[in-house]
């Protein structure tokens, strides 16, 4: 069986995620990176256990589908986090505008 190169695959997936998240990546990468390493380690273990007969082919296939599903869950989390960052930025701008308008109207801040 071909060797599963965790480092190379991990780097490729992290780059893809960072590109997708854009400027919000720095704020969302903390959990993503750790869980991604776990997924890659799982995939590697599944390959070894299939090879040694500890897992049947059907079991290994199901577990690999799980790893793909977990990546999907992570992608959705990054999406939510990115939206929260945008939401916070827009609402902060609205608050600043609100303060400026109130000041111009002579109202207390």
């Amino acid at each position, binding site marked *: 069986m071909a060797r599963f190169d965790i480092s190379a695959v991990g780097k490729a997936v992290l780059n893809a995620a960072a590109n997708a998240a854009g400027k919000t990546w720095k704020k969302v990468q903390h959990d993503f990176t750790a869980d991604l390493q776990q997924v890659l380690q799982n995939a590697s273990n599944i390959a070894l*256990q299939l090879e040694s007969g500890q897992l049947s082919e059907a079991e290994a296939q*199901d*577990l690999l*589908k*799980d*790893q793909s599903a977990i990546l999907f869950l992570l992608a959705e989390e990054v999406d*939510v986090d990115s939206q929260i960052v945008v939401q916070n930025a*827009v609402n902060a701008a609205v608050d600043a505008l609100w303060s400026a308008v109130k000041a111009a109207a002579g109202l207390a801040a």
Partner: protein
Amino acid sequence: MRQNLAGVLHRVAPLGLVLLVVSACHIKLVSDYDDNFVQAAVSTEKEISTLLQNLRNPPIGTDITYKGNIANYNKVDVDMNHLAVLSSSHENNAASIAQVNKVIEIVHGLETLHRDNTTLSPAFVTQKQQDIDLAFAIVIRTENDKKAGM
């Protein structure tokens, strides 16, 4: 006097309008945090964990076949459906809905294999448990992110 008042009103009216508009302008891209959803997710994860622990380390007399666990799977299915309903009850919650549906797929994978193979290997049950734990952790964390505001 009346002319002065008219002048002030003329100056302030547009500002008042802007005040009204701006004060109602906070945007909402993501639904609010739902504690009921988190509690339900924790409870469902525990239910599945108990099922898997009993399959991995069965107490004496425990039936570990699929038939012997149909009632447990039914309970898990009901719990997962409850989670799907909770997540669907909010606006702007597409990501959490998609996450719950994906976790349902993971759990159904377990049930399907158990039904087709009757028994499951210890290596499979151990890894499945880890996968389900991680999946629920991500779902709950995503919900908590909404509360924390990142």
